[in-house]
């Protein structure tokens, strides 16, 4: 009886392991294939919790530099900054979980509000990072209309011109134009 129970447990565990690995829950293949250029020294960051010494430039678009960074403790970070000051990112995000199949976009777009009575925000800069397989980012109006579509190249997106008006979210689409992810 005990042997049968042990056998049942072993078979159950093996089946569960197989299902988890085939379901992709144990590993996420989403990645940024753009590894960037040579290592650059990162300076000007007075950041106690995220000590970053070096990074890689993934791209330069519309006067902005896109960085792939890593803290001295190995935590992955991403940053953006002006191309006139390479090595000095103006914004840095250190987070777990990006890129992932369920989280393929790290949007670093800048929003602006001029009304005190409503949280109505419009874009003043569009930029960010996207995982392999994301072909474009769509930004929406509050009524769901598409306000702007920005192509992703080399895991980076940036827009030269931005339409005025309120924005209420964004989504990632693949090469076929199919929506693969949407912001909360």
């Amino acid at each position: 009886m005990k042997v049968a129970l042990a056998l049942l447990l072993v078979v159950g565990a093996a089946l569960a392991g197989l299902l988890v690995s085939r379901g992709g829950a144990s590993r996420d293949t989403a990645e940024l294939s753009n590894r960037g250029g040579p290592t650059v020294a990162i300076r000007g960051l007075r950041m106690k919790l995220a000590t970053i010494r070096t990074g890689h430039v993934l791209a330069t678009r519309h006067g902005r530099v896109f960085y792939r960074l890593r803290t001295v403790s190995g935590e992955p970070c991403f940053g953006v900054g002006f191309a006139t000051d390479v090595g000095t990112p103006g914004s840095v995000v250190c987070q777990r979980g990006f890129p992932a199949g369920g989280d393929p976009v790290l949007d670093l777009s800048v929003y602006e509000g001029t009304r005190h009575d409503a949280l109505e925000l419009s874009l003043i800069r569009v930029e960010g990072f996207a995982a392999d397989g994301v072909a474009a980012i769509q930004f929406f109006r509050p009524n769901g209309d598409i306000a702007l579509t920005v192509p992703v190249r080399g895991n980076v997106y940036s827009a030269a011109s931005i339409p005025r008006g309120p924005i209420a979210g964004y989504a990632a689409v693949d090469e076929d134009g199919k929506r693969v992810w949407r912001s909360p």
Partner: protein
Amino acid sequence: MTRCILEHMKRFVLFVTACVCVAAVAALARPTAASASWCWPSCSSYGLLGQSTSTYTGCWFSNGEVCSYYNSWFNLGMAKTCYPGCDWNFNTTGVVLYGFENHDRIRGRFSSRGAVTLYVRPADLSMSGLLRAQVTWYAGTNQVNAAAIG
């Protein structure tokens, strides 16, 4: 005996004077960067930023926002936890706008992530001069710690 007491007093005065001089030099040598800072809710704890949260300090929005006093800030840092929970990709139900504001506008970036640390400098939002650092509620529940240094 009297001469001995005077000698002791003289030495004591010299010692105190030397201590005052050392303290003055040390104070003047402190970096100016440490002279301005702002934290919410404190510099060593997290707070829940909700729709009705306010620092009541004249922020852009009267509710759902915490903001610093006006200063020429170097950067704003924000750490957000997974509270009350994260999904497999460390997303939370909460969304915040973090950045800066002045009398004319509020600017920032959105984040819905938990287990995240973010930094932004005013110039990166094309802002300068006297500003308030701000973190504004947009959705859900957010447990954050915000700090700005000048």
